[in-house]
């Protein structure tokens, strides 16, 4: 029985559902983030948010991590609110000539050494709007990350890391699975402590909980280490000191280049030579280092995610807005950052807007996600709970095996 698309869908359901390569989603999202970081035009930024929303709604699976996008949206709203609030309280304008004053907060004079900071004072439309645009841009960047996390399984993304970072990926995966165990352990010991009366002062309580939990954690990690050792972990690793030093040097140099390049690209006032050339140089060094480092790890990957045409298309969709908004061809650079002083309606520059819309093509280009068919009693150990049953009866889903 084929899984029915639940919810609305842009693409026909004839395509075989599969998960897109996590790296493709990440590159796509980072492309959009790069584009968003170049502009403060609220219309363009809202367009970016819209594109993210459409793609996430269409191409996320029903796994728990796919629900993360909602929380990133809340976080983004909080960021905007904080940005505007700070500007209102601390950034009151002194020189309000030609500005539109909204209201005046009581001004608290600060000593001379804090002359850069204003507390209270007149609040202007121009200032608040500037803060709002700025907050919106930050919110957009956050949502890009959120979209990547919701679209790509974080653990599979770690598995797609190059071999040189293999140990890092393993450590993160183990940490992620150990954290719930630790919480469980704390709860268990706290419960047990109540059995013993649970009297005593602060340090005593801490000790009576911390010691059993730590002993437990230590024992578990030893058992895990023994299990991993007996299952062959680290069997194929090994590199000569010379290769290790070379890898280290390449990676350090590459990272330095990447940092300089990112700074040069993101800061419009930096000299041009700092941007693209150091970014490219850094990338080359990093790739070399990773390739060299990966040679020492001889693991294979179970069911590796394939990289096919949809992956290329999605990556291209993400790179188009990044390229157009960075290079600045076909529109005036000033239109990306609408003026708030003097106050003017933001315009929607045509070329950047089209470029951002191209990113939305990913919603169709990516294959539909794998959605698990509702089966009786997953997640609750074979017990079909009443709500689940009621929902299924409402939808009048034919039982598995009956549909032709």
């Amino acid at each position, binding site marked *: 029985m084929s899984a029915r698309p639940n919810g609305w869908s842009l693409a026909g359901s004839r395509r075989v559902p599969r998960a897109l390569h996590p790296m493709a989603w990440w590159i796509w999202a980072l492309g959009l983030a790069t584009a968003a970081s170049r502009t403060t035009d609220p219309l363009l930024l809202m367009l970016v948010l819209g594109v993210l929303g459409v793609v996430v709604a269409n191409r996320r699976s029903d796994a728990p991590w796919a629900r993360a996008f909602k929380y990133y949206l809340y976080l983004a709203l909080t960021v905007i609110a904080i940005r505007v609030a700070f500007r209102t309280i601390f950034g009151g304008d002194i020189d309000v000539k030609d500005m539109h004053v909204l209201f005046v907060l009581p001004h608290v004079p600060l000593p001379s050494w804090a002359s850069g900071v204003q507390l209270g004072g007149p609040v202007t439309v121009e200032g608040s709007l500037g803060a709002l645009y700025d907050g919106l841009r930050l919110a957009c960047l956050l949502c890009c990350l959120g979209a990547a996390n919701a679209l790509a399984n974080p653990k599979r993304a770690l598995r797609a890391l190059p071999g040189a970072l293999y140990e890092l990926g393993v450590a993160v995966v183990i940490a992620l699975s150990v954290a719930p165990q630790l919480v469980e352990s704390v709860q268990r010991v706290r419960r047990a402590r109540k059995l013993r009366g649970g009297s005593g002062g602060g340090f005593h309580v801490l000790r009576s909980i911390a010691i059993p939990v730590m002993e437990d954690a230590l024992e578990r990690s030893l058992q895990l280490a023994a299990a991993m050792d007996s*299952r062959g972990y680290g069997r194929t690793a090994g590199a000569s000191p010379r290769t290790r030093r070379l890898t280290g040097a390449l990676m350090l140099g590459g990272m330095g280049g990447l940092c300089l390049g990112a700074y040069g690209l993101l800061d419009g006032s930096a000299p041009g030579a700092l941007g693209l050339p150091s970014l490219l140089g850094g990338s080359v060094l990093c790739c070399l280092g990773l390739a060299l480092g990966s040679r020492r790890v001889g693991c294979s990957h179970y069911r590796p995610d394939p990289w096919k045409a949809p992956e290329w298309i999605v990556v291209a969709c993400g790179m188009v807005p990044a390229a157009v908004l960075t290079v600045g061809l076909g529109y005036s650079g000033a239109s990306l950052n609408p003026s708030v002083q003097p106050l003017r309606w933001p315009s929607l520059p045509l070329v950047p807007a089209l470029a951002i819309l191209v990113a939305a093509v990913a919603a169709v280009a990516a294959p539909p996600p794998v959605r698990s068919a509702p089966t009786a009693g997953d997640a609750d150990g074979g017990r079909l709970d009443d709500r689940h049953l009621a929902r299924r009866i409402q939808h009048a889903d034919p039982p598995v095996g009956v549909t032709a």
Partner: protein
Amino acid sequence: MIEFDQVTVTYVGAPTPALRDVRLRIEEGELALVVGRTGVGKSTLLGAINGLVPHFTGGTLAGRVTVAGRDTKNHPPRELADVVGVVGQDPLSGFVTDTVEEELAYGMEQLAVPPDVMRKRVEETLDLLGIAELRDRPLYQLSGGQQQRVAIGSVLTAHPRVLVLDEPTSALDPNAAEDVLAAITRLVHDLGVTVVLAEHRLERVVQYADRVIEIADDGAVTAGQPATMLRTTRVAPPVIELGRLSRWDPLPLSVRDARRVAGPLRGQIGSQPAPPQQRSAPRCRGATVLHAKNIVVRYGAVIAVGGVDLDLAGGEVTAVMGRNGSGKSSLLWSLQGSGPRHSGTVDVQGVDPTTLSSVNARALVGLVPQTPADLLYLDTVAQECEQADRESGPRPSVRAKDLLDRLAPGIPEDAHPRDLSEGQRLSLVLAVQLAAAPAVVLLDEPTRGLDYGAKKTFVAIIDQLAADGRCVVVATHDVEFVAAVADRVVVMAAGDIVADGPAPEVMVASPSFAPQVAKILAPLDYLTINQVTTALTLVGR
């Protein structure tokens, strides 16, 4: 396949070796069962097979261990991963990934098995162990028996020729244990995998063994045919003890074999009703001390305990049985008052323990949880005892140390609680809880990790508690322990009580909760060897 050549293992700081001068050959395709009392070095022997001892644990290993021609001296565990698969006691703590399918593939990824071969082997292993429907499930959501089978599968995908299992069924209820053992025997019979396994619950595995390896208390090792070895081993399941008692030859290893030769014995003792259990201290059923009505415990949508009524009397030992997850623990915790209870009433001597502070609740009902070590956090036994006295109020009626000396004499005062054996640690926690002088004592799965000797001692401890007039409740799936200790058995399933009555009545009739003696002597209602001995004396043999 596996060869031990004059192996002696000594851990750092240990006065005597854990294994002494071991010479042993385990042939290909054998199922070898390692027996011995708790702490004699069973785990050391198992660990030495894949080199975890001494590469991972430290200590010195003299002599030579070879597996499939590879010497563990210059092959650390990871270099033996393609030959030896090891499954530890707690499968969950050995899992590296978080879903079944990825866990099965993990070992092969480390061995750099090509992706297409991996895919094929994962599917084969899922079918082999009957876990195909679990493939996408998160590992922590699985039941104990499923986790154990996934753990076996996760080492099996590397196609090892030897499988080493440390207590694979100890934590499982009888039915889950059957599933795991069925999977193991299938590997031995169909695939010719050599299996070495250690297990406390000998009654479950002894019939499948091709060879028994006994480790004596001084670390010496003897091996031989099960029927010969088990005549003299220090630990033996009831079926073997019954065989020894009746001098059956050859010694039957399974209930089926024993039943076929037990006809004369049944005739001999069947003329009279089964004598009562011999207790080390006399029991006398007192008045009802705990009165529980309509107890409901729920976790979200899952109902753990669904409206249970229970009356418990002083001087009576009640066993609560049922499969894992049937609500035994939840019931115990809610009776004590520290666990959740969504409706219903508990009345202990006129008071509801939930309305009291935890200090006072504990003086009414004491609970020893599944992992007793959670209660211990000080450096020595003496400190724990003193702390327990302080926690029991300004003037405790009895000192914890005195209790401990009564329950388990000979525990050194300056020992660290972590260094005690499982049985000693259980006694310490019990003493700590009894210091508050509760009228009701609840024990959650107390026999985990206890060997037959330690269990006998623990049965005597419970006899004492009951003789003191306390009401004792034991939640467990250790059938033989219940047969030896309980007056009354309550069977739970899916949160409800499905059977409640005197132990012989409930146990003899049940296919999964009948002890071995009951199965062999059915339809007579004998539960323990103890009763058979008494009956034989009575008929004057």
